[in-house]
């Protein structure tokens, strides 16, 4: 499968996750968000950036419990809770945010 966007093609797996992490850019992120029905705000981008940094550091996409805890540590407790993250990404912060961030499906997410 692939996404066609502004004359460029981005390969994805059958669930719509980008296959090549390096191809990610804000344009394709916005497109993926739109497909997920997510209206991107600064708060959404903050989580996306956090996830990409986490992946660069540890080479994995964190499971939701881990994501919540790690965000709490870095961005404060008012953001490090599942209610806040589910409001931003209703179909699962790890799953949906990872897709928009161009990461693979989180390990431990079935």
């Amino acid at each position, binding site marked *: 499968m692939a996404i066609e966007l502004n004359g460029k093609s981005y390969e994805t797996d059958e669930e719509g996750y980008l296959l090549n992490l390096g191809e990610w850019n804000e344009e394709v992120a916005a497109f993926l968000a739109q497909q997920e029905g997510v209206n991107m705000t600064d708060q959404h981008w903050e989580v996306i950036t956090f996830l990409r940094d986490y992946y660069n*550091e*540890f*080479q*994995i996409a964190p*499971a939701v419990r881990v994501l919540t*805890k790690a965000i709490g540590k870095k961005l404060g407790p008012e953001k490090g809770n599942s209610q806040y993250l589910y409001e931003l990404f209703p179909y699962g912060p790890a799953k949906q945010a990872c897709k928009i961030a161009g990461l693979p499906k989180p*390990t*431990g997410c079935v």
Partner: protein
Amino acid sequence: MTTKKFMFVNRKAPYGTIYAWEALEVVLIAAAFEQDVSIAFLDDGVFQLKKGHQTKDIGVKAFEKTWGALEDYDVTKLYVAQESLAERGLTADDLAIPVEVLSRADIGKKMEEQDVLLSF
């Protein structure tokens, strides 16, 4: 959910086979389900923890970075067999993360305490 004691027994060198990476994935999955997870490194499994993996030229992900995430997953019980390190000319200082170095016999005792043992 009932919590069980899971021990993952890692006995294979990294990269030559996919076992080591698969083991790490299952560890993370079990931990994400809030199970009581520990990992034992024996035999060539101790090589997985060696510092300084530079995998660019063989085109695979290096383990070293992901070991750092174990703490976020509350996986802190890492046991390494003393005899296996010694046979390979390694000490705890050669490893990428802090671990508990135990004799094989003591690792055997830890195994006895588990509900589930999974071997990789």
